[in-house]
């Protein structure tokens, strides 16, 4: 095992290259620029291609085209570039072509603040394509090491599910420096539980069957299979159609190939939840403060637990069925993850602790926890939040 001191940006690049990524197209943007820089250095060494695209619209479309030709491809950006991915994301999703997308979230809305962490694209990552009728896979690393591991997993899932997979990181994960272990031998790879999936070629000429099956290879052009692939609603041959019955089949496949195999996707970490009266919920960097708050709270005698979401979408409702209060901690002021937790947690009381651009402290989270447990109004400095529900 190689042990180095690196950023999340570099970790993502190493994960991508290990997983077989051989094309990166991107447009530099803080705080994801170093992913492009690292790929420009690393890819030529692996006979891969680094392209600086004219914009993010082109960046993801170049990746889509490369993947359509059989190359594993990745792009990376932050909010202002992420919104420009929408067009190409929808194409890859509806054409069912694998690709990996990294979004290092910064402070929004829009250009906002470049060099500070935010979590404003929780819902956008779920709904980046217009038109609905789909499910999508989003993974959220909380450390440099995990950025590496989840990038490998993103490529694996993209291939098996023939779909774009999004890595929703934040500025602290990608810009942050931490110890990074990189495998050097087959034993290392086994020890790290890394799994890979080579690109397969759809035999054609028919398109994907109307089933929820995964491991059906994506269309790859250039093998003279008569493959046809587009973002139109497809016939069974992949031709464009306006037939609503065929659209039902298409939408069903897009949704259920993911929902019916979610055991391959679902991932979370839970701390001290079994007897918890209150469970703190977070993903990405804030989850590290939550973890400390749970340890510290337990030392103080609080029945506090924590949940860290590692896969965000499809949303893991099953994690929120315990009878407890939930406090959702996010790097935004508007509350995004909390809406989904409240939907999933149903009758339980769900609260929100939000801030953007900087992390909460353990002390702040424990103060709020105390207030909730004592049934008091949650307060902190000038900002007040009440129970999240619109009572």
């Amino acid at each position, binding site marked *: 095992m190689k042990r180095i001191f690196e950023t999340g940006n570099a970790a993502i690049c190493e994960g991508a290259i290990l997983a077989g990524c051989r094309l990166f197209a991107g447009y530099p943007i803080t705080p994801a620029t170093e992913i492009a820089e690292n790929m420009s250095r690393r890819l030529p060494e692996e006979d891969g*291609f680094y392209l600086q695209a004219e914009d993010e619209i082109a960046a993801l*479309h170049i990746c889509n*085209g490369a993947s359509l030709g059989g190359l594993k491809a990745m792009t990376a950006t932050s909010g202002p570039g992420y919104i420009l991915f929408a067009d190409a994301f929808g194409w890859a999703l509806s054409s069912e072509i694998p690709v990996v997308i990294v979004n290092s979230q910064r402070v929004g809305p829009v250009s906002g603040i470049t060099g500070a962490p935010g979590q404003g694209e929780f819902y956008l990552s779920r709904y980046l394509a217009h038109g609905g009728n789909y499910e999508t896979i989003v993974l959220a690393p909380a450390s440099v090491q995990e950025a590496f591991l989840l990038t490998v997993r993103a490529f694996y899932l993209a291939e098996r599910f023939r779909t774009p997979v999004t890595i929703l990181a934040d500025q602290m994960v990608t810009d942050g420096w931490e110890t990074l272990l990189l495998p050097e031998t087959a034993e290392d790879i086994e020890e790290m539980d890394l799994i890979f999936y080579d690109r397969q070629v759809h035999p054609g000429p028919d398109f994907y069957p109307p089933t929820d099956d995964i491991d059906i290879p994506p269309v790859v052009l*250039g093998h003279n299979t008569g493959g046809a692939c*587009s973002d139109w609603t497809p016939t069974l041959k992949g031709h*464009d159609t306006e037939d609503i019955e065929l659209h039902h089949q298409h939408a069903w496949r897009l949704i259920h190939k993911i929902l019916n195999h979610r055991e391959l996707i679902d991932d979370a970490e839970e701390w001290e939840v079994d007897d918890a009266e209150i469970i703190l919920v977070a993903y990405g960097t804030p989850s590290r403060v939550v973890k400390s708050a749970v340890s510290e709270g337990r030392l103080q005698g609080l029945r506090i637990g924590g949940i860290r979401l590692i896969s965000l979408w499809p949303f893991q409702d099953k994690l929120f069925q315990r009878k407890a209060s939930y406090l959702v901690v996010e790097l935004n002021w508007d509350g995004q993850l909390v809406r989904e937790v409240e939907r999933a947690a149903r009758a339980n009381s769900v609260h929100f602790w939000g801030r953007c651009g900087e992390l909460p402290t353990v002390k702040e989270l424990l103060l709020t926890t105390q207030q909730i447990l004592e049934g008091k109004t949650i307060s902190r400095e000038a900002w007040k939040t009440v129970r999240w529900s619109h009572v």
Partner: protein
Amino acid sequence: MSELTTKYLRAEKARGTSCRGCGLRPAHHKVLEAIDRSGLTLADIVWGTGIGCSGRQTYATWKGDTFAGTHGRVYAMATGLRLALPPEKKIILTVGDGDAYTIGLQHLLNCARRNVGVTVVVLDNLGYQSTGGQYSITTPEGSVTDSSPRGTWEQNWAGQGLDVLNIVKEAGATFIARHTVLEGDAPVSSIAQALQNPGFSLVQIVYPCVSHFGVQTLGTRSVPEVYKWFESYPLSTGILWNSIGSRPEFSEAFRQQNNNIKNRKQDV
């Protein structure tokens, strides 16, 4: 069905979607003729399309490998695809005037700049016709359309004063031609030359939309009358630029560059 249709097109899509009297199908078939004349087979070509009349007419008609991209972005997709495909595979993109010259211009120009090995065939029907007939950047000046009820007044790029193909040339395209669909063999010959260009080629084939442009602008749905007007529509046609071989093709240059980097690394 013609011999070319049987040879190259999927039977269930061969009839196409274009209206009676439209030049789209004849223009599409000129591409097939050029392929045939070049001795290329189904296995030699990957065929991509955009959206609109041209995309809907041509997507998945090709019996070989085929794809449709999002509106205006197939040039970026083709850039990635080019790197993934072996150099001997040809990429043909059939797109509309809106796709190439307005919504996709940024990507078209960068594809030309890189001299990506693709043949872009712009099927120019003088406006946005699949949405019912609105003006585009190639609509003749002063035209009454559904979105210019008092006649177009903005400067166009239609070769009447300003010509978008000058921009494409300056961007770095290595072969550019423009023809009308009425020119018989000339467009076929130009497309055949384009297919021999390892780098970026663009061939524009112009024809008038009878159903919308004819009715709204010319006041007639009569095919002969529309084409009578079209015969005297001033356009500079022919091979407008040929610098084939003057610059390396993108994917070849890219592989060379990667090899150089690896060799240098070994030297160190």
